[in-house]
């Protein structure tokens, strides 16, 4: 029995967490929301760092909390990455890594060497934490969380305290984790970019409640969610590198609903790729429009139309094959095109981001 069943109710002055979730027992699940949405609190409840009065938590068939049981944090087979690396200042990098290793009770799944290699911190082992950069510190923090061979990895905005450059430095390591280790991850974030890049499953939260919950592509394509995402509304499509056009420095990625040309980022052919298309970059027309600078146009069918946050704007949900897309346009344009569910249109995509 795989999967995480989490039900918590927690009342604090001015804040109530009330969630009931069934999460997949594999891949990366993003807990996404603005600050104060309760995502970190939920993560802390799962770690046992917060004790919800009413709660039930089973992880892959094991009860961690119910009416009678409550497993303290140090007995839960988790790894936890804090927002600030929170390394022990009195121990060297190696001392930090060994701290959990010595106390591990599970069979080893991640060797220390592997964790060190994965995060690229081999040259830092003798240093004290105060001699590390912010990015290095967080990599050590992640390696330390892996050093206990966790059966569930909990990450609380591990990149939030870092600047853009450091984020770019760490993201590839996180992707490697995702690809190389078979450890389910709960990843708290308020950044749509990180979610788009890393998550397989999305839980969107607001005011201590779950707003939406499901596989990343479907959930992002829900029309009630983009209103909250604003400019970041868009979808993520799983694709594969299928062709390279060296002349124009482009590659073609194929996905279930068609194909897209994107800038070549030297990804090898056959490689799995993730593509992000923002709603504001999708425009609609009745014809393919050959005479245009836009490289990618996909045939699609309108499945739903909804109001956006501004009264001038509408959100349109489309299907290209089985893959959902969303487009943001003015209501006037929608009216002009006489859009309605079931109608066949062309989706012109102004920008596609290849995100790994």
């Amino acid at each position: 029995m795989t999967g995480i069943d989490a039900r918590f109710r927690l009342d604090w002055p001015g804040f109530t967490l009330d969630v009931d979730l069934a999460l997949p027992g594999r891949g990366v699940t993003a807990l996404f929301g603005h600050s104060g949405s309760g995502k970190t609190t939920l993560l802390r409840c799962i770690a046992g760092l917060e004790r919800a009065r009413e709660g039930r938590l089973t992880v892959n068939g094991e009860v961690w909390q119910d009416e009678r049981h409550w497993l303290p944090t140090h007995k839960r087979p988790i790894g936890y990455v804090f927002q600030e690396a929170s390394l022990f200042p009195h121990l060297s990098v190696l001392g930090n890594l060994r701290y959990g290793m010595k106390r591990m009770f599970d069979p080893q799944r991640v060797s220390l060497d592997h964790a060190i290699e994965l995060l690229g911190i081999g040259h830092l082992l003798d240093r004290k934490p105060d001699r590390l950069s912010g990015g290095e510190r967080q990599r050590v923090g992640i390696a330390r969380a892996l050093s206990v061979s966790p059966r569930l990895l909990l990450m609380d905005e591990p990149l939030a305290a870092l600047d853009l450059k450091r984020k770019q430095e760490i993201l590839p390591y996180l992707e490697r984790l995702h690809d190389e280790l078979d450890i389910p991850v709960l990843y708290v974030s308020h950044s749509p970019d990180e979610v788009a890049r890393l998550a397989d499953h999305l839980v969107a939260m607001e005011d201590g409640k779950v707003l939406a919950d499901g596989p990343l592509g479907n959930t992002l394509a829900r029309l009630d969610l983009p209103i909250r995402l604003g400019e970041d509304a868009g979808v993520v499509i799983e694709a594969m590198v299928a062709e390279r056009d060296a002349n124009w420095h482009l590659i073609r990625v194929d996905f279930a609903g068609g194909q897209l040309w994107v800038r070549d980022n030297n990804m090898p052919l056959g490689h799995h790729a993730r593509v992000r298309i923002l709603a504001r970059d999708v425009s609609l027309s009745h014809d393919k429009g050959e005479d245009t600078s836009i490289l990618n146009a996909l045939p699609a069918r309108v499945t739903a139309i909804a109001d956006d946050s501004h009264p001038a704007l509408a959100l349109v949900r489309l299907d290209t094959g089985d893959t959902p897309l969303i487009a943001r346009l003015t209501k006037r344009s929608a009216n002009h095109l006489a859009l309605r569910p079931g109608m066949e249109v062309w989706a012109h995509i102004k920008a596609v981001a290849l995100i790994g």
Partner: protein
Amino acid sequence: MLTDSELQAIWLTVRLASIVTLILLLIGTPIAWWLARTKSCWKGPVGAVVALPLVLPPSVLGFYLLLAMGPYGPVGQLTEALGLGRLPFTFWGLVVASVFYSLPFMVQPLQSAFEGIGERPLEVAATLRASPIDAFFTVAMPLAAPGFLTAAILTFAHTVGEFGVVLMIGGNLPGVTRVASVQIYDHVEAMEYASAHRLSAVMLVFSFFVLLVLYAWRPGAKKGA
């Protein structure tokens, strides 16, 4: 320079202060830990009781201890029932009294050191499989090391300088309860000012060096990253 009885008083003082510091490290640490982390409504009252010797005149504390440890007092009846005899006029009576008297000097620096650590390192330790006790010894204690040093030095120095309580329950027995501060007092009262000056100078120099060590050490103490 110093007479035998003065050397005896100094040695007694050092022995008393060392034993009291050791005992208070054992007793004060859990109290400070509890005070630093509890959310119980008892935190206020317990903290106030611990701080009481700071505001109470030593002679008041000494008088109550004399009553409590005497044959009609609860402590006295307990120690006699346990076959330990009575505590006033004994070295161990001074130790017990000094433990009470110096308690805040151990607990308060430790409490603020523990509070300074915050929750986070302990949460980290818990996610790395460390039980609360394990985390206390392997994380909280090393991180609070400067606090331990401060607390131990303050406790030691304060016990050395203690006078009123010793006076009240000591009985001025040479080699047993006549510590340096009482000796100085005797000299002054007997108008033997030269002897008083000599012994006072020794105490002054000692106290200065203790505080020098304390203040010289502080800036070197590493802050958490």
